């Protein structure tokens, strides 16, 4: 489906393309499709393209001389492309320990939502989440698909130090903190795996469009995986979708 897109210059060397302001899996497919075609089209010119829920930002290597010409060119590309299914997407299994030791806000969530802890864990781990994009921190996945019964407004006063691997809920979103960081989300567990490795040319295993499923693990399994991660012998599990 073609959308009515807004094109505008963002700074001297960037153009912002915007879809309607909604979070939608099908629209994400259109965003990523256009993004991939742009990357293929500009393979010789070094442009950088990032996407969010409803935007694409194209950054050019130097000042854009003829913005109107460039926007016309982009519109032509968008109107002439067919929807492709060539994106190689994956479903990743992310182990999470929901033990009280890590899930420091499970109790609050359980009381506020009148749901047992095990029911919260069940509802959180049975969903399949979509990776819309990576932002906020290196390796922070913006995930869509949180069960409505688990939506919970962010904390009024953020935690000064949310731990690396913390799995949190903030509003209608859920996600994993890839590093220690201040954060306003309610923490329900911790994942022992790494979401960002600056030693790799491709520093994140997941990418926009991929899916994530959380796998509840015991404390013993958690520590065993943590050891494998530390010795570089852990490989995140995935299947092609």
């Amino acid at each position, binding site marked *: 489906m073609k959308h009515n897109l807004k094109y505008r*210059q963002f700074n001297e060397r960037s153009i912002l393309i*915007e879809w309607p302001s*909604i979070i939608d899996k099908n629209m994400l497919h259109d965003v990523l499709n256009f993004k991939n075609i742009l990357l293929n089209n500009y393979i010789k010119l070094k442009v950088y393209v990032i996407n*969010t829920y409803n935007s694409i*930002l194209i950054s050019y290597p130097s000042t854009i001389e003829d913005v109107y010409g460039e926007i016309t060119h982009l519109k032509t590309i968008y109107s002439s492309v067919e929807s492709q299914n060539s994106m190689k997407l994956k479903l990743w299994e992310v182990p999470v320990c929901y033990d009280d030791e890590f899930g420091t806000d499970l109790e609050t969530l359980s009381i506020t939502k009148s749901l047992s802890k095990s029911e919260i864990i069940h509802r959180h781990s049975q969903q399949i989440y979509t990776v819309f*994009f990576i*932002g*906020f921190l290196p390796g922070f996945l913006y995930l869509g698909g949180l069960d409505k019964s688990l939506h919970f407004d962010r904390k009024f006063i953020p935690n000064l130090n949310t731990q690396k691997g913390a799995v949190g809920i903030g509003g209608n979103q859920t996600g994993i903190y890839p590093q220690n960081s201040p954060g306003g989300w309610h923490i329900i567990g911790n994942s022992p795996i790494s979401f960002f490795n600056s030693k790799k040319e491709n*520093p*994140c295993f997941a990418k926009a469009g991929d899916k994530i499923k959380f796998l509840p693990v015991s404390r013993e399994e958690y520590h065993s995986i943590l050891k494998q991660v530390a010795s570089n012998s852990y490989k995140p599990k995935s299947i092609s979708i």
Partner: protein
Amino acid sequence: MIKVLKSGLFSTIQDKGRFGYGAFGVPKSGTMDLYSAKLANTLLGNAATDAVLEITMTGPKLKFEVESYIVICGADISPSINGEMIQNNKVYSILKGDIIEFGKLKSGLRTYMAVKGGFKTEIVLGSQSYYKPITINDSITKGDVLSFNALTTKSKPSKLFSKLKLIDFSSEIINVFKGPEFELLSNLQKDQLKSAQFMVSKLYNRMAYQLSPLINNDLKSILTGPVLPGTVQLTPSGQLIVLMRDCQTTGGYPRVLQLTESAINLLSQKKERDILTFNLIEFP
């Protein structure tokens, strides 16, 4: 190489920054005042984007273990070689054992020291720019060793620059374009942004500059979207936040203005209590 004898307040190695990793949530980083850093490299005959030392306000004490040439540009923080005062924007020959120190801040905020051939420190994701935790260090500390290539020729860089174009750090005019959400502002807010004076608050660093005073605002957050260095965000409480080189790649506050590239350089030289006004310009 250089040995760090005293760290000073906050100094980092910076080059042109990390490109192509935004899709992984990695900030661009790179020299804050790109113009002054480039000038230092150009005067030495280096590549414009060679890695330099970015020094903030209070300089380190550095000992050269090999000979080289240096140029210091940007903020004037009273540099000296072995206790003898030197000037910004000039090439100096450095001998083995020479000690570089800095003193009183006279203008601007950020100083750039380039060495002949550029610093050769660890490259992570295509850049030498310090940004923790992408890099191990967030700034230089006492005992650090900063590497660079030894001189291949003894001839002094002899490019002649008759007229140096320097940034006037005292200028209060920050040139901006309309941001993606500018038109959501009320007329009152637009007028305020165009004419009011703002001041750099005590919260300012390589990631962002927060300005005071707050402005009246009832605009809500937006669906998280792309941001850039130089993007001016307006929070629900009316706080203006100017994102700088180490900023996140995405943000959820309305993006009301966008600084020009040269305005980012100028703002990088501002510190707490410095005054600024926005000058709205059209895209060329």
